């Protein structure tokens, strides 16, 4: 005998209690502390801050712990918190040319003012699993050069002297930067809005799209003009004060991709640029973002739109992993009302189909008998 199932509330509570247990795992293993996550899983924390669009290491670490290391879940937790925070202002644009550099490399010049600085990179490590790390071996203190007095101009500024690379671009003086967290997205979008969406876009999605441009789907001949990682100052204009107020500094990764461009009806032959900027240290994301940004400028530069990576509605509508995971996973929710409607229709159509078949067969038999 069927009795309507009640008790969803208790089931949910019990499921969450079990989740908390599994999250904690074996009680004889010490629980992770947030400072351990901040210090030792720093790049994971950076990704959560970047795609969660909230620069707060401690909250990102809490989100990672709460999400059991599921990055998209952690990003979601951070987003759902940040969205409730009141906005008290917008900082001035950050000056990445004045960055306190920890890493800066250029693939377009052997040497350049400020030099090539490798910094803390996985590049050139041999990907051999390290048993000593598992054994908890002591780690050497790093060798550090004295603070760099020399300026580190951005590569785009160096190339700009010859006029061979497009300039930074101008915005009208009264342009108010958009804010995708406060206004609905509308297509087509201005580049400032698009870059915001890309900066919080899913690393894997942008990586795949950037990769697709390299493999010929809207190939745009990229060179890494520069990748730089370091601290930049944040400053806020306060109406009561005649100067900008420093708020502190954040760590960012910036990528300037330099792309060959043969010219079109809209623009002369020159090097064009794709731009990537993300919170924390994430070269992969910044580079992928720069590739996608350049591909998405197809319309502006008069190129044919032939591939997915150039299609603004396609890329921006699907780049947000919190949206994507929600909608994909909502398929788990009950759909039995709609399924019932479809079931009724298919049953009816199937009955008609079989009736027709039987009629045809009867017809054939009659003909054969004649």
């Amino acid at each position, binding site marked *: 005998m069927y009795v309507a199932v009640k008790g969803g509330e208790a089931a949910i509570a019990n499921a969450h209690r079990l989740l908390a247990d599994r999250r904690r795992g074996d009680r004889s293993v010490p629980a992770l502390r947030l400072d351990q996550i901040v210090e030792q899983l720093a790049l994971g924390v950076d990704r959560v801050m970047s795609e969660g669009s909230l620069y707060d290491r401690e909250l990102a670490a809490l989100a990672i712990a709460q999400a059991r290391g599921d990055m998209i879940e952690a990003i979601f937790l951070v987003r759902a918190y940040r*969205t409730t925070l009141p906005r008290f202002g917008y900082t001035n644009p950050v000056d990445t040319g004045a960055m306190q550099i920890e890493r800066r490399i250029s693939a377009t010049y052997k040497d350049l003012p400020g030099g090539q600085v490798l910094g803390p990179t996985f590049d050139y490590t041999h990907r051999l699993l390290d048993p000593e790390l598992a054994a908890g071996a002591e780690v050497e203190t790093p060798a550090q050069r004295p603070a760099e007095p020399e300026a580190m101009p951005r590569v785009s500024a160096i190339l700009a002297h010859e006029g061979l690379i497009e300039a930074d671009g101008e915005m009208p003086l009264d342009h108010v930067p958009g804010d995708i967290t406060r206004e609905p997205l509308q297509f087509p979008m201005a580049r400032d809005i698009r870059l915001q969406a890309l900066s919080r876009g899913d690393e894997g999605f942008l990586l795949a799209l950037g990769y697709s441009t390299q493999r010929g789907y809207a190939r745009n001949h990229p060179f890494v003009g520069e990748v730089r990682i370091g601290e930049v100052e944040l400053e806020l204009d306060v109406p009561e004060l005649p100067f900008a107020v420093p708020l502190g500094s954040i760590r960012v990764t910036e990528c300037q991709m330099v792309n060959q461009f043969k010219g079109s009806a809209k623009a002369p032959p020159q090097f064009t640029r794709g731009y990537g900027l993300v919170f924390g240290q994430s070269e992969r994301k910044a580079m992928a973002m720069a590739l996608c940004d350049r591909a998405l400028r197809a319309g502006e530069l008069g190129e044919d739109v032939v591939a997915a990576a150039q299609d603004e509605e396609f890329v921006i509508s699907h780049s947000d992993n919190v949206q994507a995971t929600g909608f994909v996973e909502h398929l788990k929710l009950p759909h039995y*009302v*709609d399924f019932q409607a*479809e079931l009724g229709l298919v049953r009816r159509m199937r009955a008609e189909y079989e009736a027709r078949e039987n009629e045809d067969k009867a017809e054939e038999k009659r003909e054969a008998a004649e």
Partner: protein
Amino acid sequence: MNAQSNDIATYNFAYLDEQTKRMIRRAILKGIAIPGYQVPFASREMPMPYGWGTGGVQVTASIIGPDDVLKVIDQGADDTTNAVSIRAFFKKVAKVAVTTETAKASIIQTRHRIPEHPLNAGQVLVFQVPIPEPLRFLEPRETETRKMHALEEYGLMHVKLYEDIAKHGRIATTYAYPVKVEGRYVTDPSPTPKFDNPKMHRSPALQLFGAGREKRIYAVPPFTDVVSLDFEDHPFEVQTFDQPCALCGAENVYLDEVILDDHGGHMFVCSDTDHCEKRRADGHHGHLAPETHLASEETEPAE
């Protein structure tokens, strides 16, 4: 939740900050002023995933007050997990009274159904909408579909319905069946079965639709014409069931099929659990109704 001692994270009444609520209320008012028109709004991340009712939750959070009585259903039922979860959310962040009784609710948030019990003036029905654009599967681009709405260019939809008839002998759309609101905008009724479409027509209740992921709000004000698209020779018709509800014996209601065993045994029961329980409490019996007497539904007061 207003005055929480824990300082790492605090939340406003009904979760959303007041600025956000104001923004959403403006979108709702615009939607009411232009029935069936999809108003873009700056949808927020909510503490439940996109696709799980964030649009409906934002609409509800923006209109709910401390004196409201909230009912939440999913698939017509109050006890499906996501309905339980959303109801618990509002109990927690807004401390409002909740009920399972359609008639006692001032706000009903729903996914995939409209209650069987007729709604009254003063009630608000909030729909959770996954894809608000009825033309989306005919034209994937927002830039195009907005133009089509602006020009009232709905030929594509009629061609689709015609092709259904040509291929299948009937319109093969069973849910999210497109409607025309107040003679102007073709609108998605959300994935409710077309059985529920007639309930939208000139309903005394205010019907609000929230699509969080797609960032759209639209509305059908009370007593507005809502007409399901059809042709003169193929008039719109709703689903019918061969048998009444096995528990309460109701006819002309939407039924769910429940599988009883693995030999094809099944029964049909009301999708609207409140309606079914009310009827059984009133002494109606279906042919498979259990003997036990059901406690009538209760309302949990506000804290």
